[in-house]
């Protein structure tokens, strides 16, 4: 079942955008109310529930033994998976992750991996045979737009919250997180850029750009989405927006 934004609503959103306003009363550069609840799931090594307006995402981190990749025998393994559970939206269907869930997981993964937020080198147990695997499972519970930013924030919040496994093979004093990558998504409707698209905006935006940055503003991941295009100026404008908002989102991390 597809999400229909009727032509009347579409025109209304475009009209508001021309005046720098949005359907829910926000300005173009405003995020919805953000809340990050850390550690709700005790069966996970680390967990966080993020609310971005009505969007709700639960992220759980599990740390288990695994075989290393053959070309990096002493490095730990990071696996990010996302489930768009059907309870979160009438448009989510049962079944293995399809392109939306896969893209979501891979974008969040890129942010963590490319920023080298986790020092995977420290996760070897027995070279070539046994290393620590860090599973980051994103469980979307309520979809009201901008799952990427909510999931990425949840992922890093959960990682920061990790209590290592009670296992004699765990030798580190603390879980080694070095950076706090944060994703910010900017959407384009006509010639206006706006951050944190809600569901109605997502359904009719021309394009979106997600930029993941670390504390010093350097970019570790980017993803353009949507059927439309973005100009060079719009991308650079988006980066300025992103830098500012990433710092705000980072305030919600422990």
């Amino acid at each position, binding site marked *: 079942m597809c999400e*229909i*934004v*009727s*032509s*009347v*609503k*579409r*025109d*209304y959103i475009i009209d508001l955008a021309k005046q720098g306003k949005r359907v829910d009363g926000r300005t173009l550069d405003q995020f919805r109310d953000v809340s990050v609840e850390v550690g709700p799931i005790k069966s996970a090594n680390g967990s966080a529930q993020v609310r971005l307006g009505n969007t709700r995402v639960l992220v759980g981190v599990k740390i288990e033994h695994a075989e290393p990749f053959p070309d990096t025998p002493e490095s730990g393994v990071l696996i990010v998976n996302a489930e768009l559970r059907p309870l979160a939206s009438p448009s989510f269907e049962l079944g293995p992750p399809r392109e939306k869930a896969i893209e979501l997981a891979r974008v969040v993964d890129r942010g963590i991996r490319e920023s080298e937020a986790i020092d995977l080198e420290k996760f070897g147990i027995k070279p070539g045979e046994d290393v620590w695997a860090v599973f980051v499972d994103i469980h979307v519970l309520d979809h009201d737009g901008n799952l990427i930013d909510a999931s990425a924030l949840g992922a890093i919040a959960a990682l920061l919250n990790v209590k290592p496994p009670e296992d004699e093979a765990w030798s580190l004093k603390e879980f080694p997180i070095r950076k706090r990558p944060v994703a910010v998504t900017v959407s384009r409707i006509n010639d206006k850029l706006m951050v944190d698209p809600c569901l109605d905006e997502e359904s009719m935006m021309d394009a979106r750009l997600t930029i993941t940055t670390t504390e010093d503003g350097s970019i570790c991941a980017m993803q353009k989405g949507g059927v439309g295009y973005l100009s060079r100026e719009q991308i650079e404008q988006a980066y300025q927006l992103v830098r500012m908002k990433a710092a705000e989102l980072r305030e919600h991390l422990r």
Partner: protein
Amino acid sequence: MIHVHDRELVVPGQLIAEGSYRLQEGTFREGNQVYSAVVGLVDLRGREINVIPLQGRYIPSRGDLVIGVVIDSHYSGWIFDLNSPYTGNLFVSDLLHRKVDLNREDISGYLNIGDVVIAMVKDVDERMRVLLETDAPGMGKVEGGELVEISPVKVPRVLGRKGSMLNTLQDATGCRVSVGQNGRIIIEGKDQRMMNAVVEALLMIEREAHTSGLTDRVRLLLEKAKSVGGN
């Protein structure tokens, strides 16, 4: 013998009465007992028992005014999303109020996917196949304005007793407000600020539908919007 009082909140399976009462929506009978089937408010009128549901989808019924969104077209008409488990079907002859020779006329120009139409439910059969028509003034394709979607169970409150709340919304703002039984509402007007005030009022009604003093609070909200308008 009635076991609850009027306007009491009841839940599914709750005993409402024993005896020979006339049952309306939201209730069912087992032997001599009458129970609530939904979460709702008991509405007692003489020997009639009704439970007004506080939640639920819209189920089309003949004579309902509805606001639909075109989701598909077929050879002789269009299929509408009605914010319901059931879609509606509008034949081109019921849109144009005349016979149409489909061999000669290309009907695809009249409506597109995503268009919003105010219509009436002409008929619903036992398989819940819904026929629509646009045979009255004010019906047909909507060309502008704002579309608001609220929970269908709140529509009676938006209309008010004998249309009183709807009149308040229209008179205080000068906007035309078309209320579909399916929870969709179209607001048309010249003043964007007044239209926005209606949207705000509708959301307030949805939130506070079963409280008292609501009509006054809505009137206050609309008066404020008018004065802020700056005269």
